[in-house]
């Protein structure tokens, strides 16, 4: 394989009203113009690791953006950023994905494709109410630790055996964020392979109080910004 391609191709194309840029090399990539995303380096493979899948039996998929392929349940080579405020001069960034149940129900299990890169190995996963189109108060939060560094195909899962009541037609958010113990954490939320035709809505909270620039990502400072992306993040809300 050839190496050392240094020339950058640029492309500006309108795709669903979203401008994109292509950088050349051995991998060419189209990136969403808004939001904080990052790409993964090669060589971080691991054997497929679909934990807790047997526990999914009998549960209803209230929302599910994982693919059906065990060796590729999500796209692991690009991620939405989830960083603490002290990570390498970058702004603090949290990422959230919305869903709207079609029927009243109760969420008993959440699954996300969270991948750790650097710093304290942990994140906060929460199920939040909606607050005028962005994540609001948390209904429940869980601490995630020992996140995988491998690219594919581990899935982090948390449970609430009693079930968190959800109302049909109401918008909720699954949120990956950091807490005070994860100030130096750099992690990512891998992308969903589904919905590539129309893209997906997502939201990111950004704060550049400790470094970086939220505006460089098209994000508000110290606030959530909802936007339409070429791609969504991989998650599932299961229940009864």
């Amino acid at each position, binding site marked *: *394989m*050839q*190496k*050392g*391609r*240094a*020339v950058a*191709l640029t*492309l500006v*194309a309108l*795709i669903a009203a979203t401008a*994109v840029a*292509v950088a*050349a*090399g*051995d*991998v*060419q*990539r*189209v*990136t969403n113009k808004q939001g904080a995303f990052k790409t993964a380096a*090669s*060589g971080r*493979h691991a*054997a*497929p690791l*679909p934990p807790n*899948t047997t526990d*999914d039996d009998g549960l209803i*998929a209230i929302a*599910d953006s*994982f*693919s*059906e*392929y*065990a*060796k*590729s*349940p999500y*796209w*692991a*080579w*690009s991620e939405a950023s989830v960083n603490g405020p002290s990570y390498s001069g970058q702004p603090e960034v949290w990422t959230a994905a919305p869903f709207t149940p079609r029927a009243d129900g109760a969420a008993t299990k959440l*699954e996300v494709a969270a991948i750790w890169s650097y710093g304290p190995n942990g994140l906060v996963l929460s199920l939040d109410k909606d607050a005028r189109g962005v994540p609001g108060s948390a209904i429940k939060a869980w601490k995630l630790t020992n996140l995988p560094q491998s*690219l*594919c*195909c581990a*899935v982090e899962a948390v449970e609430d055996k009693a079930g968190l009541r959800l109302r049909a037609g109401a918008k909720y958010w699954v949120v990956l964020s950091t807490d005070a113990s994860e100030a130096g954490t750099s992690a990512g939320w891998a992308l969903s*392979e*589904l*919905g*590539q*035709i*129309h893209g997906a809505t997502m939201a990111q909270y950004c704060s550049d109080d400790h470094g970086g620039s939220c505006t460089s990502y098209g994000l508000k400072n110290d606030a959530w910004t909802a936007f339409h992306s*070429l*791609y969504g993040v991989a998650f*599932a809300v299961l229940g009864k």
Partner: protein
Amino acid sequence: MNWKAPALLMAVVLGACGGHAVTPAAPAAAPATFARTKLVTIVGNLASYRSGRYWAFEGSPVTGPDAEEGFPENWRAVAFSPSANHTATVIQVGVGLVSGTDGLVLSLNRDDKGIPGKAIATVQLRNLPAFGTCCTIETATLAKGVPLKAGTQYWVVVSTNTSELTTSATWTFNDTDQVDSFLEASYCPSNCGSGSGWTPYQSDTVSGSELAYAVLGSN
């Protein structure tokens, strides 16, 4: 979530490969709508769902020599070995146009000591979708069908010709298997940093995901 393995490598047989005339196939609408039920998947990695037949936003470059200043001509190939004898009648790839002349050459090649060799069938692709849009599959129908032998290595190749000097395109990655590594090759005539001609490599050294393609046919 429910998990399953992608349907890979199935049928195949028939004698030696000959040089067959090939009729260019019109690019399929998104996604392809041909009568796939009559075909078997000889090899392939395309996903079954409409909104993600492949990962539309990343791939490997396929460029003509004048696509970008200082950017070498670059072709790509993916290797496969049928598990049984088959006749190939359809080749599918997930490619997108970045800039330049709207066209690519899709071919089915013999193996030549571990790299793509002589083309068995060649098809001209036109009206390529824009790179970054999902999920048109370029479908080439082989007029007579190409016999493939079990256990023999072949290559699906995407390249440019003399009318596509400025073509800059991307062969996208599959989104059904990011775990296993597959044999691919990159062609560069010169000034590529690691020699000229075809250079084989394992897919996981580039992206972790094989180029998106399928070879269909009959048993």
